[in-house]
């Protein structure tokens, strides 16, 4: 899986087509991958958990899970990996590619969908295609875990309110006492349709080699 040094060039070429990264970016990411995994071919959860900078992130478990989630790979299966190779790592990263001017309209929509799907998968922890209230609550709780004052109860209330918001925007004829089971992907897309994902959910991947900058981490 991991790119061995001899085949690396070929591997990179292959991945450029798959992920849309440039060769330099892939090289960079590969270096980072090796740094994270301690020069092993695969990456396990512990490796990611040990990143000091990530420790403060309230949703770090969700982020780490996302890397081991099979749904974020091309074949879109259910379940999760125990360890991932560089290719999987790259695939997950590719969700965060920024748009460029040249991106066509169809590509944009596809990328947007992909990003929304990524977010959706992050919340839909059991993979049943619905974000249930429980899952949503958990997500909000984690998000708010930093601000301790709000507490669990507040987080739940917010999740509830948010859930109802989804319900009311998507199922306008839902009676006040009908039960809304969970946010499907379509509904999820619907509530985020006005949000400009393309311009927000992206990371600048460095083109040049900045290994020396990274040593602090």
């Amino acid at each position, binding site marked *: 899986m991991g790119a061995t040094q001899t085949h690396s060039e070929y591997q990179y070429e292959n991945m450029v087509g798959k992920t849309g990264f440039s060769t330099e970016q892939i090289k960079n990411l590969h270096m980072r991958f090796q740094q994270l995994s301690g020069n092993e071919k695969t990456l396990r959860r512990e490796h990611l958990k040990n990143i000091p900078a990530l420790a403060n992130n309230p949703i770090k478990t969700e982020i780490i899970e996302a890397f081991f989630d099979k749904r974020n790979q091309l074949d879109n299966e259910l379940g999760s990996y125990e360890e991932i190779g560089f290719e999987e790592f790259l695939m997950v990263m590719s969700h965060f590619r920024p748009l460029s001017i040249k991106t066509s309209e169809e590509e944009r929509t596809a990328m947007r969908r992909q990003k929304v799907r990524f977010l959706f998968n992050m919340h839909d922890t059991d993979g049943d295609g619905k974000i249930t209230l429980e899952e949503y609550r958990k997500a909000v709780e984690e998000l708010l875990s930093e601000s301790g004052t709000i507490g669990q*109860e507040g987080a739940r209330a917010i999740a509830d*309110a948010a859930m*109802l*918001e989804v319900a009311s925007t998507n199922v306008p*004829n839902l009676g006040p*006492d009908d039960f809304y089971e969970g946010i499907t992907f379509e509904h999820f897309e619907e509530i985020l349709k006005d949000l400009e994902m393309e*311009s927000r959910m992206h990371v600048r991947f460095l083109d040049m080699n900045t290994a020396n900058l990274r040593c602090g981490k």
Partner: protein
Amino acid sequence: MERFTLLRMRTNSGVICMIFVLFLCCTTGKCKLQETKPTNSVSLDTVKPYPNDIGEPQPYPEEEKGKLPVFTMNYSRIQIPFEFTLWILLASFSKIGFHIYHKITIWIPESCLLIGIGLIVGGIMYSVKEEPPAVLSSDVFFLYMLPPIVLENGYFMPTRPFFENVGTVLWYTVVGTLWNSIGIGLSLFAICQFEVFDLQDINLQENLLFASIISAVDPVAALNVFEDVGINEQIYIVIFGEGLFSDAVTVVLYSMFAFLANMPAIDSEDVFLGVARFFVVGIGGVLFGLLFGFMAAFTSRFTNRVREIEPLFIFMFSYLAYLVAELFAISSVMAIIICAITMKYYVEENVSQRSCTTIRHVVKMLATISETLIFFFLGVVTITTVHEWNWAYILFTLLFAFLWRGLGILVLTQIINPFRTIQFNLKDQFGLAYGGLRGAICFALVFTLGDTINRRNLFVTASVAIIIFTVFIQGISIRPIIEYIKIRKTNKDLNTINVTIHTRTMEHLLCGIDDLCGQWGHYYWKDKFKRFNDRFLRRILLRDRKAESSIVSMYKKLELQNAIELLDTTMGDISAAPSLLSLQDEKKEASRPKKKFKATDIKKMHDILSKNMYRIRQRTTAFTSKHSLPDDSQTREILIRRHASIRRSLRAESFREQPAQNISKSLRYYSLQPGGNLDSALPLRRRSHAIPEVDRLRSSGVSPRSSSRSLIPMSKLNTIEERRSPVEASVDSTHPLEPSSTEDHLDEVFTGSRVRGRRAPVPAARRRGPNRVDEDEDENVSEGQGEERHLPPRGWAPENRDLGANEAGNSLLRPSSLRSQRSWKT
């Protein structure tokens, strides 16, 4: 129905207009205070042509005779504030006028209309040989008119997009303005070398000075359009920031060139010093802004005992920042902007909700007045001032302004694009270039030119020409063009909880990914700042230093909004809102927003369904009550709520008709004596008002509540529940209590319907069972029943009746609630 709401809207806006006018009348007193000082010093000689011979002589001779004057008039004493007030009123009236038929302002920007009105007034003044007020002297403009505008811009700047694009904004602003000034200045200087144009006496410095004046963009009109069409955030913020900071840059450039223009000779050292000064001025402004911003924030920490003057600190500190910066001749615009940005975040958390509203309103109001006046005077002065028309110079100015702007955007974008993650495409660039309107700053600056400039009148004419050209031609055409070329658009403000949640999630996610990649991205720094902020700044500056997530604040905002709207719509009585607000303030419910939810929302189950926000709140209750959380503070809530509603019902009493009196009497009774007494009292009252219409309506499937206003209030509560019940009653017959039993067993229904309402999720889920997942349903059942234990004590039920009563008096609400109810069912 349609016409009805329309009518109501009309009256509403009419009332708002009236209030605004009154408000303005009251507040102009304040403005007078601010603005009289300068007019005193500057315009005394120009502004009073005739009062001297009419107003003054009259009182004095009579006094000499020793008799008490019965009627005296001393116009000259009040003349300046008086005329100033009239000017403001006139300008404000025209603003009202535009908005009566609001479609005008969609197609023609307000600034155009104001200039137009100004032109007309100027024409009238010109024909009667009246001189315009000399408000636009340098001092008046810089000390009194400019600060409010800039403060408003800084205070309402969208912070997040700004900091995400700060590099680009500064790049376009600083370099772009320099580029424009120097480019236009040099090319105009080249034009001046041609003898045919008769312009040889304009030297390079004066050309540069003039160019720096006209390169200040003032994109109010463009921003309005951008906001309306929902243009993408990046363009918006760049144009916004450009307008904001180009003021600063232009003012610096202006003072620099104005200084240079008066110098006989310039050597290279001066140029170098000029550049150094440029940075000193800019960075000094930033530092002063930070200093005063933090001071304001720190002060606001201690103002909770003096709420009345709380807003004042904000204005005083920002004005102080401005003045002190002015004192040291550093960029005062920069100082006040930075001050506003710095303090806003902390101040708004420290001050009370009402002070916060006051601050925002006053900031907006002052800025609007300033801006309105400037555009208005622009029109007036255009007619009344002395012009020097030189075809060549003016046309070339227009041409170069256009050319250099376009060229500048093209070149600067090429340079900045590789550094941006979202790059500007050609359409975006066109939007940026075309959004560069000239406006108030340019106009004011050119009028402050000293008399030492020998072609001053030509400069004035050219500036006015370019302002009018850009404001009219570009301002009017920008909307169709932008809509035609379909520039990338984005959402407007999305005030939903979900969007906030997911925006935050994305931010954390991206920050995490940045960390994973080991890069120091934008989000890394944001995160770092946030940590620093939480750890130090908030601790020092905030009274209540609970870190609050944006989700929570959004949630609270929506809550508050709903609460206010609820009160507004139901009572038609705004005065009810503050009382509740202050209650909430005192209770400090920040940590448990859910409670607030409960308190406010069961009140209005019906008339709010037509609005989206309402519906959310609505559902939320239904939802949260399903999975009810332990509810210990409920009794207190009820108490507060009851007090509020009693008060309101008493107030409302006065303009209610016959049945209403009945109601309010019983209201007091019910609210004071909850519990068992109620039930015995209810049927009595009910019978006395037995209305056939109710039956008819019920048989037609409409809940009884929809009957005329004579219907007594308590039935209203039932129907809140009943309206739900028919939905499931049609399918589910497990409940013995049907809505039709209201008439005779009202007490039963009353409690029964409540229970049914609460239990509702069970049948509902069952009904939908076939196409839904079953396991959820089971869980739901248990939860629904578990909820029952948390049913509120009966004593709180009459509360709803109170509210119903209020509603009964409000016939305006009835139709809409009825309609929404119907649509609800279908």
